[in-house]
């Protein structure tokens, strides 16, 4: 069995996700327990800057593949390389952020390397060769403790915002440059272009989310919600009722059939808090509910409840925040 902890640095067009530095903090913790080293994997195209940024965090080794076939994440290309590197170095543990890319990569490695993987973990406990992790199941209604004992390697993806970000340190990592395994003609999937790339923070990464539900009453009802989000530098979320009514696009939906989020602060405006909505936001650190109905289920989950008409309360709250944040 090999040793060493690997962490996959997830990025979108060379912009690293905060979840990568969270995975890094777990990697460091685990590596120090196992008295072994941390290696980061950074794949992309023209990623000098990204490698530099990664150097700030990891003190041991960075394996870099800077190649035009790596421009966009494609699981065939990234997976083939990661699997080949695994054969060469045989790390004991591979950590990835549980983003869309991290999930696909973990699926690929699971099949290619013939081991089960665990996704979306919120706790990792390592003791010698024994690794136990915790992950939410049944839409976050239960937690499952899962053991990876006896698996080589142990592949674990980590839920974004479940762990603190690593702190920067002044290491001088060794950089190993490697070549891509597949050439462009070997890769079946071609990426054509992007649209709608969000300028704002993606929901999964956001520190603060302000969401609107059926209670906002219509597309214009999201105006005060957006204004509050602007003041707080927050992302805008929505309930399925608001999305299904066509008031806001689906990529804002929070919940079981939308995104799972875990911000420091979640402000639900005119959302009743159905179990399927809760499934996507229940792990938020502080939840504020603004609702006319004191008996709405969200009031059970929330830390603070404001019983008021959101159209009356939000402008006052926004003004109050502005004078505080000034």
């Amino acid at each position, binding site marked *: 069995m090999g040793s060493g902890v690997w962490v996959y640095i997830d990025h979108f067009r060379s912009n690293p*996700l905060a979840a990568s530095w969270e995975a890094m903090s777990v990697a460091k913790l685990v590596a120090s327990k196992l008295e072994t080293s941390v290696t980061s994997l950074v794949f992309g195209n023209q990623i000098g800057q990204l490698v530099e940024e990664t150097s700030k965090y990891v003190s041991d080794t960075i394996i870099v593949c800077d190649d035009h076939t790596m421009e966009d994440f494609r*699981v065939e290309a990234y997976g083939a390389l990661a699997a080949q590197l695994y054969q060469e170095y045989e790390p004991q543990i591979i950590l990835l952020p549980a983003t*869309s890319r991290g999930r696909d990569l973990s699926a690929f490695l699971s099949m290619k390397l013939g081991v089960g993987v665990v996704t979306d973990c919120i706790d990792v406990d390592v003791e010698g060769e024994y690794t136990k992790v915790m992950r939410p199941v049944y839409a976050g209604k239960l937690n499952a403790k899962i053991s990876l004992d006896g698996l080589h390697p142990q592949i674990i993806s980590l839920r974004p915002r479940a762990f603190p970000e690593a702190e920067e340190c002044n290491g001088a990592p060794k950089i190993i440059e490697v070549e891509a395994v597949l050439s462009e003609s070997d890769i079946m999937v071609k990426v054509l272009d992007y649209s709608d790339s*969000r300028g704002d923070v993606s929901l999964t990464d956001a520190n603060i989310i302000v969401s609107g539900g059926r209670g906002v009453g219509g597309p214009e009802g999201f105006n005060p919600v957006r204004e509050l989000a602007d003041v707080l530098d927050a992302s805008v979320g929505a309930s399925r009722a608001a999305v299904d009514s066509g008031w806001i696009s*689906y990529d804002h939906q929070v919940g*079981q059939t939308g995104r799972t989020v875990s911000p420091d602060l979640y402000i639900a405006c005119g959302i009743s808090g159905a179990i399927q909505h809760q499934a996507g936001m229940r792990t938020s650190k502080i939840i504020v509910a603004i609702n006319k109905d004191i008996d709405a289920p969200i009031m059970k989950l929330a*830390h*603070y409840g404001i019983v008021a008409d959101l159209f009356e309360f939000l402008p006052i709250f926004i003004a109050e925040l502005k004078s505080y944040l000034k």
Partner: protein
Amino acid sequence: MHNLVCIKHTPDSAAKMLVENGQVSWGDAPMVVNPWDEYAIEEALSVRDKLGGRVTALTMGPESSKEALKTAIAMGCDHGILISDESMSSYDARITSIVISKAIAKLDNVQLVFFGKQAIDGDTGLVPMSVAYTLGWSGFSYVAELAEIDIDNESIGVIRLLEEGRQSCSGKLPAVISVVKEINEPRYPSFVGIRKASKAEIQVLTLDDLELGDQISSKHNGSLNWSELQEIPRKSTDAEIVEGSDLNSIASELVEKLIEDKVI
């Protein structure tokens, strides 16, 4: 064109989950087709409606999962296949993917395999891309739009919904896709469909039929061990209702609390 849709029978999303003796139970809450898979069924059906051909629904699970296949048939699928075997109980995503892939490879001329983004019991979202890998087919996860299917040129174009925006990409047929909710609005089972489903013969495959008996029962080599399930400690109290003489004082009270909690 032969399209396949993989579905899973899961407890209803509103079911209360309890743990009894380390096992999960959901009382008498109903089992349903995994909600994400309804979008996969709809997409498979609308491709058939446009391009012709047939749609097979496939599930792996206990005998009772036939109900999920009947729902799929009631919605309009042509045929249902259940993979069921005495020896299988709690397979992880990898073993599930190996079994499903083997079944797909045995079927006739499958061009597109549809999955939901994830199953709401385990919530892993691993199976679709694992099946794509095993079959060696193009795989597209998180698909929000099937932009193009060109059977003559054996190509497919899709739009994927990522955290950061929409990505349009293309690949070859046959292909595997997993869909998100945005892709369509699932139809309801029709009256005719329900009648058809009640009479439908569900084909049952065992691991031996798939020539996987030995490979799988050489027992969970490399599999995960779900040692324990735990209930999540509930917040015992209701929300603290922020009160004040008027909305202004409530707002400033709330701001103070959020500052104290260090979240703003």
